[in-house]
């Protein structure tokens, strides 16, 4: 059985021979990649956003626009879902061969629900950041108060010590 050895390390190390004497004689590290790149045959992107539903070929049931009222839309999608389930049950009773379209509609509602929930994640991330910043500010204020108090205490003790020693 033939075993392959590991590939040799890349030959760039020769370029860094004089790095300790002259840091500028060797090449700079490559700049960070922007956009898309290929890694082990697969394409990846550095721009991580949630693709909108049309890009995935799914019809969007809730109204588009900059500000979506998440609670209202989630509730109405939930109601739609229950209606579609009832419709599926009805179709199975009356015309059982037409189930496919109903099942498709149900899965459409589910996809919309999940997409809406995923689009809440950036909002959640920003809210988490706000919360962390507030906590940090509170801790720093507390630390400033503590230090002030301790300095006052130390100064008071010093003054008392001076008074007692001067009394002698």
């Amino acid at each position, binding site marked *: 059985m033939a075993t392959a050895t590991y590939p040799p390390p890349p030959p760039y190390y020769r370029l860094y021979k004089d790095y300790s004497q002259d840091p500028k004689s060797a090449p700079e590290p490559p700049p960070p990649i922007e956009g898309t790149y290929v890694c082990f045959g697969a394409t990846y992107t550095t721009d991580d956003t949630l693709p909108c539903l049309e890009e995935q070929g799914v019809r969007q049931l809730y109204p588009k626009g900059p500000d979506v009222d998440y609670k209202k839309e989630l*509730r109405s999608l*939930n109601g739609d879902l229950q209606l579609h389930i009832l419709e599926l049950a009805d179709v199975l009773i009356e015309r059982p061969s037409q189930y496919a379209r109903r099942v498709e509609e149900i899965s459409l509602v589910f996809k919309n629900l999940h997409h809406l929930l995923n689009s809440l994640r950036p*909002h959640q991330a920003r809210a988490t950041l706000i919360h962390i910043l507030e906590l940090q500010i509170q801790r720093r204020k507390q630390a400033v108060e503590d230090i002030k108090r301790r300095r006052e205490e130390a100064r008071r003790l010093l003054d008392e010590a001076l008074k007692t020693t001067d009394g002698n």
Partner: protein
Amino acid sequence: MDIISQLQEQVNLIAHLAFNTIGTLQRDAPPNRLSPNYPEPPAHPTEDAANFAEQPKIMSAALVKAAKQFDALVAALPISEGGEEAQLKRITELQAENDMIGQELQKQLEAAERELNQVQELYRQASDNCLNLKKPE
């Protein structure tokens, strides 16, 4: 678990219950009479009849309960005010305040460090004097 993950879990649960309900009913339903021309199909008196009437009720109750819980979770979503810009504005305000407090903290720390050094110097001198006074014997 955070509320959005709970909502996602609830959606998956509703899907699970819905397809279980429909699937179980479809699999276990007793045969139905199609048209007046054909005779009544032979009924299966043994296993299903008793539990079978209960199952749709139990399963649909579970489905509706899950949907109500989803609504309750949606009502508990802490989405305040409007949008991305308000949040970003708040973040910049908080960062500015954080920087200010950070500088204040730095100043206090430096002052406290200086006073600490002064006190240590005083102690050194006092202890030196004490030691020197004891020397003559």
